[in-house]
């Protein structure tokens, strides 16, 4: 087995080793730790790129851990979707980390260790082909996120953290109930194998399986912050440190990814009791999430909370694309995924600079002193707001256009059009208000706070450049997401790749 053959495991091993090294090096100067963290995070970019390359032609890279064949051992499966998620994660992580180096990382212990292990958990979740292993990696990324969320401490942060931890513990419990039931009926844990077993399930087990599969959906919906399970998100994201919130922009996408991955296999089969399981549930909930997310953003009293609610809204849009159950819509969603991740991450980072620049009023929507570097920060906010609201000409608009275009062919076109367009408009109104309150309604004298350093604004610019890149390269990018959607919509290939000769 050549080294290239180990490519699928690299996104997992790399951050793990980095985390261990950082833990061992905890006594060395901060500079060294930062160096290690940066190198390890940047290294994920070529790895993800390589995987994108390797899976581009539609092959599924199956990696047998411990050299035990599926479905007995645990397998990693790298396909277009997984590679896509890995790349987006790596990109956000790089800039979140760069921002954190402005001092966030030294506000508490073990930031860099937690950061690397967070990536370990995320990447593992994207790659695994085993349902119980997915649970394990959910726990890893959760515990890492607990640590990161609480990093730095503070009253509201601790309260938000407590809520986040407890609700997720309850969620994990439900996850185990669901996985257990699935195993108890089918006697296997490998997702592909499960899909095969489902297709061949006798009718008397139908309700039992559906019930278990829906419970699993409940868990994923919690991670994805789908209505009515999104209440943990605004507080958690709104009160944690900026770089962590920026990194968390990808976390809700893990839930969305799991829904897509698992149910494209389980419910994607033509036959079996689970065929089309979520059709009745996902779309209405997603639209409700979109609407409530924007309402929440309108009700927010501060910019960070508003950003958090826009994360909720973006999940709504993304899952609308998934819920339409149409390849074109899915392609739109997968194109929207990186856009919304970058845009919301940028907003979180920018909100931090704004809060620091304004001093006492912080990021609250109250008239305050004019902040230093207002023209630059203001222009950045203008662009970020356009991106977050999905206004032309940036990729968010293109994604929504694709989504609506695809929706027109479905029976629910009216609803989707109404909700997406209306929330789009409201988003614009809300962000215009925020911008005008934060930057225009200023009273002299100017804030005496330190000027936001370029090092703090650079990651924001970089994320916006990524959004711009998505816009300019919309053609090839959407072609690729269409390829992803096509691959996801045809689970048979995945199953054959994993089970190979076994079936």
């Amino acid at each position, binding site marked *: *087995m050549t*080294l290239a053959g*180990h490519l699928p*495991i690299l996104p997992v*091993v790399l951050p*793990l*080793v980095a985390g*261990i090294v950082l*833990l061992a090096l905890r006594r060395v100067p901060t500079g060294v730790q930062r160096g290690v963290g940066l190198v390890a995070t940047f290294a994920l970019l070529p790895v993800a790129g390589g995987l994108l390359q390797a899976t581009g032609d539609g092959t599924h890279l199956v990696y047998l*851990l*411990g*050299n*035990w064949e599926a*479905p*007995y051992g645990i397998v990693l499966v790298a396909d277009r979707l997984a590679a896509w998620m890995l790349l987006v994660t790596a990109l956000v992580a790089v800039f979140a980390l760069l921002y954190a180096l402005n001092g966030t990382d030294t506000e508490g*212990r*073990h930031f860099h260790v*937690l950061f690397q292990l967070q990536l370990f958990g995320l990447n593992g979740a994207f790659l695994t082909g085993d349902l119980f*292993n997915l649970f*394990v990696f959910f*726990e*890893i990324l959760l*515990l890492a996120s607990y*640590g990161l969320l*609480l990093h730095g*401490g503070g009253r509201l942060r601790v309260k938000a953290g407590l809520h986040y931890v407890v609700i997720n513990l*309850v969620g994990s419990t*439900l996850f185990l109930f669901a996985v257990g039931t699935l195993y108890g009926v089918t*006697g*296997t844990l490998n997702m592909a194998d499960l899909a095969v077993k489902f297709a061949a399930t006798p*009718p*008397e087990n*139908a*309700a*039992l399986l*559906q*019930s278990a599969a*829906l419970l699993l*959906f409940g868990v994923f*919906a*919690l991670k994805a912050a789908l209505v*009515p*399970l999104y209440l943990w998100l605004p507080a958690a994201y709104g009160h944690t440190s900026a770089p962590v919130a920026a990194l968390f922009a990808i976390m809700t996408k893990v839930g969305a990814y799991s829904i897509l991955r698992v149910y494209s296999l389980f419910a994607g089969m033509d036959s079996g009791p689970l065929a089309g399981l979520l059709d009745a549930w996902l779309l209405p909930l997603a639209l409700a999430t979109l609407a409530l997310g*924007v309402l929440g953003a*309108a009700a927010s009293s501060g910019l960070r909370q508003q950003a958090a609610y826009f994360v909720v809204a973006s999940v709504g849009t993304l899952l609308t694309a998934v819920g339409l159950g149409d390849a074109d819509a899915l392609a739109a969603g997968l194109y929207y995924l990186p856009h919304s991740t970058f845009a919301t991450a940028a907003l979180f980072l920018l909100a931090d600079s704004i809060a620091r620049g304004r001093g006492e009023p912080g990021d609250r929507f109250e008239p305050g002193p004019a902040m230093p570097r207002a*023209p630059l920060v203001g222009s950045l906010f*203008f662009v970020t707001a356009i991106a977050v609201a999905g*206004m032309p000409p940036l990729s968010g*608009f293109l994604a929504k*256009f694709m989504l*609506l*275009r695809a929706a027109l062919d479905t029976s629910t076109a009216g609803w989707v059009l109404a909700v997406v*367009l209306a929330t789009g408009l409201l988003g*614009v*109104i809300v962000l*215009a208000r925020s911008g*005008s309150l934060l930057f225009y309604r200023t009273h002299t004298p100017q804030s005496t706070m330190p000027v936001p350093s370029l090092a703090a604004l650079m990651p924001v610019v970089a994320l916006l450049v990524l959004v711009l890149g998505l816009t300019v390269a*919309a*053609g090839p990018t959407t072609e690729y997401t*269409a390829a992803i959607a096509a691959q996801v919509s045809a689970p048979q290939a995945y199953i054959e790749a994993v089970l190979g000769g076994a079936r």
Partner: protein
Amino acid sequence: MTLLLAVLLPFAGAALVAWVARSGRSRAAWAAGAVTLGSILLLAPLLPLPFAGTTLVQQVDWMPALGLHLAFRLDGLALLFAGLILGIGLLIVLYARYYLSERDSMGRFYASLMLFMGSMLGIVLSENLIQLLIFWELTSLSSFLLISYWQHREEARNGARMALAVTGLGGFAMLGGFLLLGYIVGSYELSDVFASADHIRAHPLYVPTLTLILLGVFTKSAQFPFHFWLPHAMAAPTPVSAYLHSATMVKAGVFLLARLYPVLSGTPEWFWLVSSAGLATLLLGAYTALFKHDLKGLLAYSTISHLGLITLLFGLSTPLAAVAGVFHIINHATFKASLFMAAGIIDHEAGTRDMRRLNGLWKFMPYTATLAMVAASAMAGVPLLNGFLSKEMFFAEAVHISQEHVAGWLLPALVTLAGAFAVAYSIRFIHDVFFNGEPVDLPRTPHEPPRWMKVPVEILVMLCLVVGTAPALTVAPLLAVAAESTLQTALPEYHLALWHGFNTALVMSLVALAMGVLIYLVRRPLTAWHESGANRIDARIPYNALLNGFFALSRFVTRRIDTGSLQRQVLFFLLAALALGVAPWLAGESPLTGKRPGLPPDTVSLSAAAALMLATIATVWWRDRRFTALIVIGVVGLVVSLTFVKFSAPDLALTQLSVEIVTIILLLLALFFLPQRGEPEPRRSRLWRDGFLALAAGTGTAALAWAVLTRPYETIAGYFLENSKPGGGGTNVVNVILVDFRGYDTLGEITVLALAGLGIFAMLQTLILTAPSRDTAGRAWNADAHPVIMATLTRLLLPLALLVAVFILLRGHNQPGGGFIAGLITAVALIVQYLANGAAWTHQRMASDSQPLIAWGLGIATFTGLASWAFGHPFLTSTFGYQHWPVVGKFELASAMAFDLGVFLVVVGATLMILTGLGGLHRPEPRQAAARQEAH
């Protein structure tokens, strides 16, 4: 590509201007002018094409799969508008240079202006509808920046937000409309859309499509009832108003009306929707304009009125009306731009725009006055000026239409009335400002503006004159091509001339003039009457009500749902889980109970189960007496581990037991710092609700367990049993699964443990809690913290415990045991030292920092996994072999054992870190510390 460049240049220019502006105010103006000229020069060579009757279409692929290209189109209509945008844009650049004061940031102004110019150019040159929409929205966004330019003024901020909200609404509606259009046609290219015009008009989706697109048009062109944003946009600097409200922003709407005229017009829906909106706007605007005391306010409403006129013309949907519409677009742009600039000059020089104070300026600025008067006459439609010609055509068409409709006389009557009001407010503009007595305490004494500030006005007024006197020689060819590309068919018969003979239209004009004078004469009573009820018709009131309503609603909804209560979150999650879990059973197709025979219950199990359930209930019951609850929950854990023993799971039993011990110790330590008693629930209703929920959840899981247990299943377990020894080299299958078959899970799980340890460590760094010196009953704690007997005993026990741990670790691969259990036992043994001897004593003898243990453990486990790469195997591939040593004899060495060692270390490290960290929190009060010293 020329067209693309011409559009993109201003966008690039925006950045350039902003950058140049740092090095001098005029430079920004020069740069902006250069950029504008650049676009003009790029388009200039293409000028002949439209006149030769050819439509130039240039296209670059962008998202070909979606039919979204960068496609540009240069035909007569596009050319006309491009000319207006760039030509007047250039004049505005010049004018603004002298208008803006020292305090205003030139860079921001010109940059936004360039952005806006580019967006407008993009609209009129677009071949692709979605691309057109993109530029459409960009005009909304950039106009937001322009209107809010004087951001310190509240009316500027609100005006900008209102404009954005209203035009944004239109934009999103139009997106819907275009999506439908593309859905009907199958393409977003204008050429294809034109080709399938009949198909569109016949399509069932025609009406929604039309409505949505018209929403966009009406909001943008300030048609009734969306006109209200325009007057508030007057808070912008006058150059901006002159640009946005004469030639560009508001003209985008009528441009689209013209653009899609061949596709959407010719149906009764179009006729009624468009012409009625136009007529209402025409009248309302003309009427309101008369009563505005603010110069710009008057011009704003006059703009609204003229836009209504143009809309009405397109609504009439006769070819000639369309021609007249295009013609009036040109004329209005010229005279309105010059009027705004004149108003700006007056404001600039006199310091106010209030016509009740501005009087008799003639003697101060006769030259400007002349220019303004000519332009105003054009606005009034006085002969020899361009306004007259298009108005004549308009009247003629009104009459022409009226012959076909019942009560047709109404239309000519109404438009004449509107004309009369136009005359009236034009007279007022002239008379009130330049004559009508003396100025009333002006801030400063007015005088003529600087030379170059007048040039743009001169040019525009000159245009009004030449077009008005010699239309055939000047505007005719441009109008022809523009009108032709609007209609997409051959032009109707018409000729531009001053004198069409003594016809109805002329009569209407004369009547309008006469009536206008009359209205002006009786303006005072009229004004009084109007102002008595003016505030009653203000569309801003419903707008604000709507907006505030939205924000209030969102706050209400969000506050109701997101109360920041954890209990509610858990509640929601439970309800969701119940709904999801129960839903599939409602169909009632499959039975709950399966066919698998079960085991008979025996008394031991029965009593054990009874004990467990009782203990559980007791835990719930005594939840507020926390120590008691802790003890009974310990019983629960104990019985659970017994259950594992009973059902052939020795490893689990051991693990559960040791975890149980550690957890209880942990809870004890924690309880030390928490209130010993809980507060009783204030509301019984809550208890009932939760009780019911708990019952439902319990029933659910019980049913789930029952359903599975009573069903047969085939499992992949056989494989593990077969391959455990030959493939994994161990007879304890569970352990082999943990360290080999599913070693990856285990790796993840020790990472979780490590993370828990680190997270807790990080939390404890900043956590300081003082231990109570007395319990809840007020009794002092036992001062003798560490009884001597216990201390010595545990010290003797430690090596023994460690020995057991090592033994369990080693045999784990083949017999119940393994890394976890060994690790936990070790940890417990060490913890006991803490409890018995106190942190101080223990720290002297043990490394207090257990982080290296975790690092080592994770490291060993990971690198054992990585080692398999060297042998060309995947991550975590295990190997094992049998060694023969003298004395020791034959024994097995498996890589999995190294892995298990890693597990062991992490478990020890993490557990120690957690417990010692928590134990270390204890900051004893002095008295106790003293007591401890004695104890030692």
